[in-house]
């Protein structure tokens, strides 16, 4: 077992090295199998065989689908999709690449992925078919180098009827293209007949050739070849002397005709091949772009609620289809509101099936293919995070299915990441709240019990000490007030009721409410401060907190300084004391809940400043603490002045 692990490890490193150093494989280490599959019904056998082989060798395996230029029938597509899904389910890595030559494409994949053995099915095709086509098997065997090739004969008894009936093929034939080919042939023939007298019949061949080349850029393969053959026949019949016979009298005309025929066919073939390759490249690029945009949309989103509308829009864009996303929750599966269609109860049951079985279901799959939508489970590791449902108008092509699967995989990763983040956030919050709860409990019980003890002691004396009682009651009231304020702020019930206030009046009222004696506070308010729109009660409460904080920390012989001035677009109200000031690094901490500094005198919950900050922030303002140059701390409330007050106009009377 240990040896196996080491071998795998070495293999992984090796692949990294190869991709870094651009070594074309294979570099024999562990075994890796590659099997080529197509829409042929034998593919399933091939997949299962390779899987057994891979299991017996404990090797990883790759299933490759070479997208040939030939377009697949609906039936074939469904089959191929099923095979690829089967391969994924059995643990294979699935690769789809376009290519015109199976052998070459397979070898390319094999070299890129350091494959050691290739499994392919032995074709049942008749021998003459491989006579004029390059036989991919033989080519592969000749060129595979040190890669082993397994050839699996098709099981004759398992041979189904012809994959496609003649009628089906005819129904699928591009009749429009054939029509176009005929029209082009007729047009060129007509033109040639009219100018034939001036140009001679050899030039006509060039017209025909030109038509074939141009047609090849538009028409499909067989109509192009049909046009090539037709034009050769027409040229022979209508132009080569003796005219209106297929007979060719002169040897050089015969040569010319032969050359024309070959060139026309080859050019037609090459041009269509080129176009098809270009088309498939374009499709791949579109797919890659779509996937890129998809991943980018996910990367740019901070949470699911932001990401899902974006990806619904992307799917709408790429597939012209509506999408809905189901996510796992406590009760099972629920549809996220961001989808572009409202799933029916039937959709829901199919989605639940896909979720539970971790297999795609619905349209274009084996399970409930009659459903309106295709449901792809979002799988990460061994669990499903949800289901992506897409309501497609038509059956999806292989490429669309693959793209959807890729979307689903990316989305699954994102959902998984979000879930993990959320869990860790929740855990952190739980830890913090536990800590906070303990602090709260400790300080609250202390703050409540101390004045109660003082009261009890004062009452037990023969002459109850009224001053002591009053002080204790006052402290108790303040503690309860702070706790209530903090709770109210926490619950989010606080909604500032803004009204226009004169800052000077606001500050004087707050100072008066704090109960400070005239000598204990010095108020210095700049003239002509503009009116500000705030909730006067809340701002006064915040100021009150700063004032009682200054009383607690300042020296009693020097007055507290309250000042107000305008700083650009802000109103700054400061409360300064002449106490010992803040310890270094305390500037922000003092506003934290239950924070009690090293220089704090005993008593108090450590809530007042935190409440003040929340009150000020509810108005879009800031609160800052700093030490003054000449000693003592200065707390400043900065409130945005905002717009200028406009009183409704009225006439002066009385």
């Amino acid at each position, binding site marked *: 077992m240990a040896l196996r692990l080491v071998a795998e490890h070495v293999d992984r490193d090796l692949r990294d090295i190869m991709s870094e150093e651009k070594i074309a494989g294979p570099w024999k280490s562990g075994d890796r199998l590659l099997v080529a599959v197509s829409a042929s019904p034998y593919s399933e056998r091939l997949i299962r065989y390779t899987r057994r082989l891979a299991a017996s060798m404990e090797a990883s395996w790759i299933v490759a689908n070479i997208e040939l230029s030939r377009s697949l029938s609906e039936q074939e597509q469904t089959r191929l999709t099923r095979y690829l899904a089967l391969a994924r389910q059995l643990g294979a890595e699935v690769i789809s690449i376009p290519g015109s030559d199976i052998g070459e494409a397979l070898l390319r994949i094999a070299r890129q992925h350091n494959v050691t053995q290739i499994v392919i099915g032995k074709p049942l095709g008749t021998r003459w078919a491989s006579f004029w086509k390059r036989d991919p098997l033989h080519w592969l065997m000749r060129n595979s180098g040190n890669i082993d090739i397994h050839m699996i004969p098709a099981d004759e008894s398992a041979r189904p009827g012809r994959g496609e009936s003649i009628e089906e093929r005819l129904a699928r034939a591009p009749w429009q293209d054939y029509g176009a080919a005929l029209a082009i042939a007729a047009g060129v023939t007509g033109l040639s007949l009219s100018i034939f007298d001036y140009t001679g019949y050899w030039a006509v061949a060039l017209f025909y050739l030109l038509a074939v080349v141009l047609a090849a850029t538009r028409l499909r393969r067989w109509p192009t070849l049909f046009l090539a053959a037709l034009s050769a026949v027409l040229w022979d019949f209508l132009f080569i002397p003796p005219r209106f016979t297929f007979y060719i009298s002169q040897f050089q005309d015969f040569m010319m005709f032969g050359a024309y025929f070959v060139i026309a066919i080859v050019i037609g073939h090459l041009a269509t091949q080129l176009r098809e390759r270009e088309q498939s490249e374009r499709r791949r690029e579109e797919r890659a772009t779509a996937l890129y945009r998809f991943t980018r949309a996910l990367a740019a989103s901070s949470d699911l609620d932001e990401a899902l509308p974006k990806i619904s829009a992307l799917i709408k864009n790429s597939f012209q289809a509506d999408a809905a996303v189901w996510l796992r929750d406590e009760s099972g599966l629920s549809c996220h509101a961001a989808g572009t269609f409202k799933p029916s109860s039937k959709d829901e049951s199919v989605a639940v099936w896909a979720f539970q079985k971790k297999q795609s279901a619905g349209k274009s799959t084996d399970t409930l293919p009659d459903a309106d939508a295709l449901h792809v489970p979002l799988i990460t590791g061994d669990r499903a995070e949800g289901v992506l449902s897409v309501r497609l108008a038509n059956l999806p092509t292989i490429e669309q299915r693959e793209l959807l699967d890729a979307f689903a995989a990316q989305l699954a990763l994102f959902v998984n990441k979000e879930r993990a983040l959320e869990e860790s956030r929740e855990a952190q919050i739980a830890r913090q709240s536990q800590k906070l709860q303990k602090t709260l409990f400790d300080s609250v019980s202390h703050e409540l019990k101390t004045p109660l003890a003082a009261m009890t002691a004062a009452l037990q004396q023969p002459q109850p000490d009224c001053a002591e009682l009053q002080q204790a*009651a006052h402290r108790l*009231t303040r503690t309860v*007030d702070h706790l*209530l*304020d903090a709770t*109210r702020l926490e619950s989010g019930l606080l909604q500032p*009721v*803004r*009204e*226009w*206030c*004169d800052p*000077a*009046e606001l500050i*004087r*009222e707050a100072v*008066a*409410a704090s109960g400070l004696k005239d000598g204990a506070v010095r108020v210095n308010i700049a003239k002509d401060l503009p*009116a500000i*729109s705030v909730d*006067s*009660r809340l701002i*006064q409460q915040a100021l009150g907190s700063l004032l009682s904080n200054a009383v607690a920390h300042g020296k009693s012989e020097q007055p507290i300084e309250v000042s107000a001035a305008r700083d650009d677009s802000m109103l700054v109200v400061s409360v300064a004391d002449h106490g010992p000031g803040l310890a270094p690094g305390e500037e922000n901490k003092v506003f934290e809940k239950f924070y009690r500094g090293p220089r704090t005198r005993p008593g108090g919950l450590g809530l007042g400043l935190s409440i003040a900050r929340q009150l000020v922030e509810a108005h879009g303002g800031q609160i800052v603490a700093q030490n003054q140059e000449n000693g003592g701390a200065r707390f400043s409330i900065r409130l945005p002045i905002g717009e200028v*007050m406009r*009183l*409704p106009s*009225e*006439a*002066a*009377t*009385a």
Partner: protein
Amino acid sequence: MKPVAVIIDDEVQIRRLLRVALEAENYQVHETDNGRDGLIEIANRKPAVILLDLGLPDMDGLDVLKRLREWSEAPVLVLSVRDDEQGKVAALDSGAEDYVTKPFSTPELLARLRAAQRKTRPEEEVSIFKSGDLIVDLTARVVTRGDREIKLTATEYALLRLFVRHPGRVLTHRYILREIWGPKSEEHRQYLRVYITHLRQKIEVDPTTPCLIKTESGIGYRFDAA
């Protein structure tokens, strides 16, 4: 015959405290601990003043207030806790005369009680109001301090008139707005404080420490005529 006071509060300690204070002021005190009994008590005793707690076990104190206002004009003093500005405002707007906040001092309570009773004496239209050398003549619509006439805008005069007619009583923001600007007055809410400031600057001896128009934070204003 002694004036009757009815206390509706579910806290035994508070009731006992109030009873002591009110009996010292020569009231005859009846108390209940729930709203239903309280309404019956009020109907039977025809009290001169009612002290009503807003947090009752069987029904909302506000509902008690609304029901008794259907058939009784007896002044109601609401007992409330701090941080319940909305409750206080709702009670005042539903017809309570005034409120006191627990914990309250006895002198404060008695002062409020007197003010609440005073204003319900038969409404002889106050035509002239005097405070120090400030004279407000509501018939002639003239405000003077000493020999000098004070010029007020229409709004300021309306405000002053409203305050003068309700001395010692807290007026909620909503009440003031409705009285001065009519039912659709919410837009003026944010300017009310500014009008008050302007009025203070004209009628207060020292506008920085107002003695006549006091701010009741979060609730409204009180005109201290004493």
